[in-house]
């Protein structure tokens, strides 16, 4: 399973979405060059509002960690992603997040709700182990109800077995 490639794919998607977001007014402003590849620093006045969801997306490696079939362990690449999320949470101590746990469509409904819950909690527990106050992290499971990849194939299922961190305030 080519997990690192998949994660890179998600990250790229996230950045691409951010780039598109410069056109419509109601969407968050584009992240610019701020925290992506260069180290120029947050000097652009058009950068994301500090502490916003856009800022979160622009600052972290990814908002999403992926899981193997029926698994919920946090592996090395997941740890890197969650560490970047923990750093952001460290910068904005008043911010809270929700971790959304998901499963792929190849499971029964009730079990997938339980599995999504398990995955979201695994991600939460890792953030807590990095010093994040558990009261700042809520979890919710969507089971197989909210896929992002719509195919019925291994690649889509791998992308749907995920825990997504979303800022809530």
């Amino acid at each position, binding site marked *: 399973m080519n997990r690192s490639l998949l994660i890179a794919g998600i990250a790229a998607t996230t950045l691409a979405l951010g780039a598109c977001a410069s056109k419509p007014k109601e969407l968050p402003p584009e992240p610019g060059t701020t925290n992506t590849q260069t180290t120029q620093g947050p000097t652009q006045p058009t950068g994301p509002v500090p502490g916003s969801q856009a800022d979160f997306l622009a600052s972290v490696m990814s908002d999403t960690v992926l899981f193997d079939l029926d698994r919920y362990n946090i592996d090395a690449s997941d740890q890197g992603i969650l560490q970047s999320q923990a750093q952001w949470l460290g910068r904005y101590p008043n911010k809270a997040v929700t971790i959304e746990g998901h499963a792929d469509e190849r499971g*029964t*409904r009730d079990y997938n709700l339980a599995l999504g819950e398990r995955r979201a909690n*695994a991600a939460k527990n890792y953030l807590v182990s990095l010093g994040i106050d558990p009261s700042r992290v809520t*979890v919710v499971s969507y089971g197989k109800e909210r896929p992002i990849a719509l195919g019925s194939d291994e690649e889509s299922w791998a992308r749907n077995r995920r825990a997504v961190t979303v800022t809530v305030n």
Partner: protein
Amino acid sequence: MKLRFLVLAAGLVSIPALVAAQQVALPDSAAQPADEGLTGSVSDENEWQDLGIAIPAFPTNESVATAAEGGTTDALGRNVARVVFNDLKNNGLFKPLGPDQLPAVAFPQVSAPTFDIWRGRSAEMLVQGFVKANPDGRLTVGCYLYDVALGSELARQGYVVKPEEWRRAAHKCADMVYSRLSGESPFFDSKIAYIAETGPKDRRRKQLAIMDSDGANHRFITNGQATALTPRYSPDYSKIVYLSYLNGAPRIYVYNVGTGQQTLVTSSTNPTFAPRWSPDGKWILYSMAVAGNTDIYRVPATGGTSTRLTDSPGIDVGGSYSPDGSKIVFESDRSGGQQLYVMNADGSNQKRISFFGGRAATPEWSPRGDQIAFTHMAGNFKIAVTDPYGKGMRTLTDSWQDEAPTWSPNGRIIQFFRTERGSGKTGIWQVDLTGRNERKLNTPVDGSDPAWGPVLP
């Protein structure tokens, strides 16, 4: 919702006056009553012949206006016969001819059939009936079953119904015919709760909906703004327990069908899901995740303190009571993948029963107690049955993804939902215990999570 259902069965002692009067008006059929002629039951494995049954339109003594479908008792009589015909046709056991393929029958012939005509049409069985308007606006529907070859009456019943509940009289008539001919318990006069699905795969709108066992009287209960999942009718049909994301997180609600009000099943802030009723309707079994670990709990249906029944570090989820309420079958991944386990109703003596290869999930105990239906995940997702000890496993369907079986009230038919690979479109299907008679139910939109309730009183 109250329906007057009166049995006109010959020999019934305490017949209410209204019905008794009608029975006087109806002479005994000229045919000699058969003794216990047709016996035997439709066993799982045996072929059942395609029995030819003629079901002509039910005549009326006098065609008058009625609020029931058709507008007059004459038109209604045809509609009643159509419902009986469709019920019997769709269960796969019979090969009926309906009112649209048969000549009309005069009112006096209902109790005095001309058997020679029906023999000439190769009918082995004959279902006749009548519709009468009562002075109080209700309707009396009579239903007779004759054995054409023997020239004898096998059974008869009468039902007094409000016009808007005319279909129930037809279902009761079909149930009488089915029971008498198959030896099985009735099931047509029952209802189904399910989830109506619309919209694209990544933004599926999921609404709680109900319908009769034949798909009629369809009604949406929720508007779809919050995702609804996994409904179950209470044994008396007064409530539906289901999962909703109403306040953003998955929680079990008890919806009161009469008042339209709903309440949370527990006050816990933890997610609750996979609700099930106990057979007596006094308890609700549910699953709750605490810090990521899901276990099975039981709570009084009226609210109160929950009791935890499982405590493994794995996912313990779902569950279904045996008909006597003494045992629960549930699924757990404590041994790795999902498998079936049986425990006592208090949570003691938990034992794995599934050793079939692959994974086994969503067990549902048959209302007869002899079988457990489940989702067998081995490549495809298939509907399968096993006995309560894990013996005699049989696969009934084989499609890309069939899941979530629910039993007909008599334990002879299983409904489930089928998901289409790629599109994610869903539909409700049913299959009988032979696995040969499989068909899709007609629902207004896509459907999943069917839950079949008991036979109405």
